[in-house]
């Protein structure tokens, strides 16, 4: 019965070993490699300018759920919310030729894109909503990206467990036609629950990449010195995948 012992042994090793493997350097780099292979395969199969399907108004879900921060209480966010975000500013900074600060009126005056898309949370649920705002590309073109810039970091007003939320995407996603800085949901100003007054829509990725309560857009060469160095709040605190296309 040597073979059976071998099989039982293999099984037990698998169950007990996964956790240990994941916590070793080699193990986590294999897991990371699968993730980056995943990103390359998806980029290969989905041309960079191709759009995700958009829906019709009748497909919009009756309520748009919020996750993570749904009512930030830190810093001067509550004061901004009480004032209807009249003095909100979005800073464009980092590796750009012309750093700038845009008011909500200036953002609303830019060419707008409206899209009805499906939002997929990493937990598994989905909701459909109509989003309106300028394309991120329009804003980056106004500021003039430096050739060294490789990532766009989204700075947020909210904190989770005392740590500021942030996210980052690469230029492929930043330049995608459906990547917008949304200020409206279903034809009304963005509710606080869904990221008022500004949130990112990056439609080919999961919900945690769609940073809410945006205060800044920063062009950088590397993510190593931002936050915990992994490119986003959930990536830093819990090891979520930086590329969330699956």
């Amino acid at each position, binding site marked *: 019965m040597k073979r059976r012992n071998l099989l039982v042994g293999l099984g037990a090793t698998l169950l007990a070993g996964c956790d240990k493997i994941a916590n070793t350097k080699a193990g986590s780099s294999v897991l990371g490699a699968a993730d980056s*292979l995943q990103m390359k395969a998806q980029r290969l199969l989905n041309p960079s300018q191709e759009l995700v*399907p958009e829906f019709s108004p009748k497909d919009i879900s009756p309520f748009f759920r919020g996750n993570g921060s749904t009512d930030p209480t830190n810093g001067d966010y509550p004061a901004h919310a009480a004032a209807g975000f009249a003095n909100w500013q979005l800073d464009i900074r980092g590796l750009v030729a012309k750093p700038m600060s845009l008011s909500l009126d200036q953002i609303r005056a830019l060419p707008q894109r409206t899209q009805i898309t499906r939002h997929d949370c990493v937990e*598994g649920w989905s*909701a459909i909503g109509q989003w309106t705002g300028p394309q991120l590309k329009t804003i980056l073109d106004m500021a003039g990206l430096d050739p060294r810039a490789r990532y766009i970091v989204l700075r947020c007003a909210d904190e989770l467990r005392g740590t500021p939320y942030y996210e980052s995407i690469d230029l492929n996603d930043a330049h995608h036609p459906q990547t917008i800085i949304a200020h409206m949901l279903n034809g009304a100003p963005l509710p606080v629950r869904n990221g008022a007054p500004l949130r990112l829509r990056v439609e080919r990725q999961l919900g945690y990449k769609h940073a809410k309560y945006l205060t800044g857009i920063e062009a950088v060469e590397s993510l190593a010195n931002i936050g915990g160095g992994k490119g986003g709040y959930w990536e830093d605190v819990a090891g979520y995948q930086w590329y969330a296309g699956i």
Partner: protein
Amino acid sequence: MKRHALSTRIWHWLNLVFVTVLFMSGLTISNAHPRLYWGQWGFAEGQQWLSVPRFPDWMVIPGYYNLAQARAWHILAAWGFALMLLFMWVAMLANRHFRRDIATSKREWRPANIWHDVVEHLKLNFDDVGSKYNFLQKLAYGVVLGIFLPMMIATGIAISPGMEPSFGWLVQLLGGRQSARSLHFIFAWSIVGFFVIHILLVLLSGPRRQISAMIDGGHRDEA
């Protein structure tokens, strides 16, 4: 009983490892939002067609609730699973395993033959029927290799937002993203169902001979 080809044996055991990792990490992913919906969207209590029980820690990878790590294992094992399934299909078409041993003939679909096969199974008589597999075996292996396993890949692609631009048609075909997620779950448990019956029949038909045949190929034409 004819020998198992080396390609079949390699695929069989590697597939067992990949499917096990996928299933156990999948249970953690199920625990993250244990409700299943039909259509494109669904996010709240009351919208689901099924509330899934929470799976205990001993059943899941990594052994406790950690969605990020479960997803990492799921993505890694999915690559092995998909590439090995492709390998197995190429191998069994090339070495004629599929046509010779798994594809069924019209004659085998006659009710009398199916009935005979069911009766022989109930009598636990698994003696050779001339071909490598009997009708119910061919049907089971054909459905698993041709439907259950490929559907895991198709529904997995349909759940992925990064695949939406090129595979939006697939999401539509499957009835929406939440339907695809529900089907992913249904086919995963269908594979578990096959696994249970498969193990049971191996145990009833001489486990020692069956398992060693899947390791070293088995003896040539014993019968």
